[in-house]
């Protein structure tokens, strides 16, 4: 039996900053590299850019078509007000990170914490729709 860890890679995380004018800046460790068609961070990048990026409508439609709730996605997008920032951390289903401990750690920050779970077929649908775009 493998022991779950609290450590995770930078690939798992993205940071979004929204300035006073409302423009969002997305920072992700591996987003400037050439990705494999399906890598661990592909979904994180797609999700972050769909929710907070400049091309929101088309990208959000893709997530909705894959089965994610449109109103929930809108709530997440609207939660990032001007002059605020967000940290996103994604763990694929085969991750060995102990997310229960991480949830406890993150809840100690002064911020609004949103925790989402995605069945594997949703992830597969998003990636499949991306490939067919």
């Amino acid at each position, binding site marked *: 039996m493998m022991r779950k860890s*609290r450590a995770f890679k930078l690939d798992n995380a993205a*940071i979004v*900053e929204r300035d006073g004018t409302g423009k969002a800046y997305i920072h992700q460790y591996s987003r400037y590299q050439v990705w494999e068609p399906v890598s661990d961070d592909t*979904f*994180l990048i797609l*999700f972050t850019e769909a929710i907070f990026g400049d091309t929101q409508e088309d990208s959000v439609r893709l997530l909705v078509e894959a089965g994610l709730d449109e109103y929930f996605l809108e709530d*997440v997008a609207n*939660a*990032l*007000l001007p*002059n*605020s*920032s*967000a*940290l*996103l*951390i*994604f*763990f*694929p*289903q*085969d*991750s060995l990170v102990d*997310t229960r401990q*991480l*949830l406890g*750690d*993150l809840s*100690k*920050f*002064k*911020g*609004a*914490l*949103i*925790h*989402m*779970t*995605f*069945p*594997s077929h949703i*992830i597969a649908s998003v990636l499949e729709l991306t490939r067919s775009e």
Partner: protein
Amino acid sequence: MHSELFVLIFNQELRFLEFPAGASDDAEKQGI
């Protein structure tokens, strides 16, 4: 089996964020 996503939204710029006491014992030991 499912994947998980955490979104933590701060009502401030990231550079002003303070690391909360006790957020991670390991991190504190390493002086992070």
